């Protein structure tokens, strides 16, 4: 489903003509299969977030290729990436990234609006999603009226509403207490088992990584024992 080959990415610091390159991702290669939960672990500064940003199309690699559904994403324009994300990806962020001026209902509805779906169809889908994530009584609440766990559930609802094939999660439980964290992890596992959604998540928490089928470790931008995965189950 996702094939990453020899991916390189460097930061460029300094003014033009006197720039210094700091390599962040170095010759990273790996694959993610359909229906898998894959965790990318590593310490702060190891390059996990950069790798996820590359896979999301927010930044472009210096070299190497990213193939998703056997499509080479090299050379995709901003607009093509946007369409690709909307069609195939769901995103879960550590800090939820909900829009404060929109209610839970409207936040979940947002990707459908961006897709151009009709109002009536959206209404039904969002109501069903609120039920599915256990927030059917909180649709009209604004993010600041919800707990951290509830906000992350809204974020998950927003990621799932377009029926994506892959969910990219950046520290999905990073801002939650351990009890809420377990609830969210259970929900992700349930979605994976029941609906076969593929998860690629980055985390520094080995407890979170335990729910993954496979774990890839990043260390200073390099994938440790390249291509060798740590079986966690």
């Amino acid at each position, binding site marked *: 489903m996702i094939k990453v080959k020899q991916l390189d990415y460097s*930061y460029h610091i300094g003014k033009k003509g006197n720039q210094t390159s700091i390599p962040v991702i170095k010759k990273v290669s790996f694959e993610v299969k359909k229906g898998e939960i894959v965790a990318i672990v590593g310490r702060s500064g190891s390059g996990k977030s950069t790798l996820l*940003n590359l896979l999301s199309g927010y930044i472009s690699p210096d070299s190497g290729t990213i193939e998703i559904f056997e499509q080479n994403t090299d050379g995709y324009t*901003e607009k093509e990436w*946007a*369409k690709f*994300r*909307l069609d195939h990806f769901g995103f879960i962020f550590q800090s939820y990234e909900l*829009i404060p*001026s929109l209610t839970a209902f409207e936040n979940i509805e947002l990707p459908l609006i*961006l897709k151009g779906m009709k109002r009536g169809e959206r209404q039904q889908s969002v109501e069903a999603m609120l039920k599915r994530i256990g927030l059917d009584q909180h649709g009209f609440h604004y993010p600041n009226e919800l707990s951290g766990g509830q906000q992350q559930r809204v974020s998950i609802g927003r990621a799932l509403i377009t029926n994506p094939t892959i969910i990219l999660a950046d520290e999905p439980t990073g801002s939650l207490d351990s009890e809420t964290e377990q609830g969210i992890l259970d929900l992700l596992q349930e979605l994976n088992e029941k609906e076969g959604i593929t998860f690629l998540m980055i985390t520094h928490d080995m407890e979170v990584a335990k729910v993954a089928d496979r774990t890839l470790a990043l260390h200073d931008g390099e994938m440790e024992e390249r291509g060798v995965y740590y079986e966690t189950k």
Partner: protein
Amino acid sequence: MFIMKLNDQFQMVKKNMKKNKLRVFMTVLATTMGCAFLIVLASIGFGLQGSIMEQMTEYQSITEIRVHGKDIDGEFHPLTKEDVESINTIEDVTGVVTQDYVPGVVVTNLNEFEGYSQMLLRNLDSAETTNFSLSEGRYPEKTNEIIVGYDFKETLYEPIGDNELEEGETGNNFSGDLLNETILVQIKDYESESILYEKEFVIVGIGKESARDWLNDGSIYANIDLKEEIFTVMDEPKERLEIYDNVSVHVMDIQQNERVTKELKEMNFAVYSITEEIDRLNIFFAAFKAGLIFVGAVAVIIASIGIFNTMTMAVTERTHEIGVMKALGANPLNIRQMFLMESAFIGVIGSFFGVLISYIVSFAANIIIPLILESVTESTEIDIVFSAIPIELVLIAVAISVGVAMLSGFRPAAKATSINVLTALRREA
């Protein structure tokens, strides 16, 4: 599908505008004032142009061309029958009216009523060919039939006592129906006052009332065929029978007027047409109005600085929101559209109120300014429209206001589109 529905974009824009009501209100207010200033300023040009045009066309119809004579080898010659015939052959000429003033004092007698009038000899075939409309009756068919002007009745007075009326003296007015009455017309010599010509006429038609209050028509119109008979008796020079005092050419509209005027000039006729005056006036007022619109547009441009500021603030405030939308997969085009839509809304709402206010100001100005002028100049009535707002001025002002508003939103919209997702979400690369 990858394009947001227009209605959804509209709803989002509406929501965003509601979030910053005061700021949006102040920006709309600035646009309103700019737009209203532009319209009111330019309306002075339109108003004065209309007033001057109206005054000009009060004296001459736009379907009439006056021909005074012909220029032959640098010499001026009066118009002859041949000239009139050649004018009649010009395309679009619906009629040529020749008119001669009967010399002498014209006295009219109807029973015991008597009056002084002016007698004109002209062709009186029909309204279409002579531009002479009747309020009642018909056009003369015989030489003893005449038409009288609408106000002719007012020239007839009942003599006081046994003495005949002196010119300018008044008695009781005639109040009966003039149609089909027989009047005795006497033409007297200016100096000796001896009666040179006398004939009874039947009034078969009465001219149409003039649209202008101050214009009274008390003349009598007899058929041109009487010219030879009257002029011979009056001992007028024989050459006068071959020429005309006054010739007017009639057409259907202003376009035909322009074309026929041009052709008459090419034929060396000395022509006076109102279209030439109107052309000159139009050129002057076009420049005048353009100048006023330009000055007014400066006000709109100043207002646009406010819109630019508001939109830039809106983009800055919504950086996170835009980042989230882009991260999820928003079409960059939709983001640009939403910001352009917001600035266009400010322009549209501002223009709407601007137009409304301009009409109120214009209406008030047309009432108040004449009152002030009347009291200052001690005039009885000043009938001038100072401010007029035609639909084209509204369209120009709205186009400028909305256009400038959209232009001011263009850069902030481009800025919104180019927002970096990672910066907006405060994520490390």
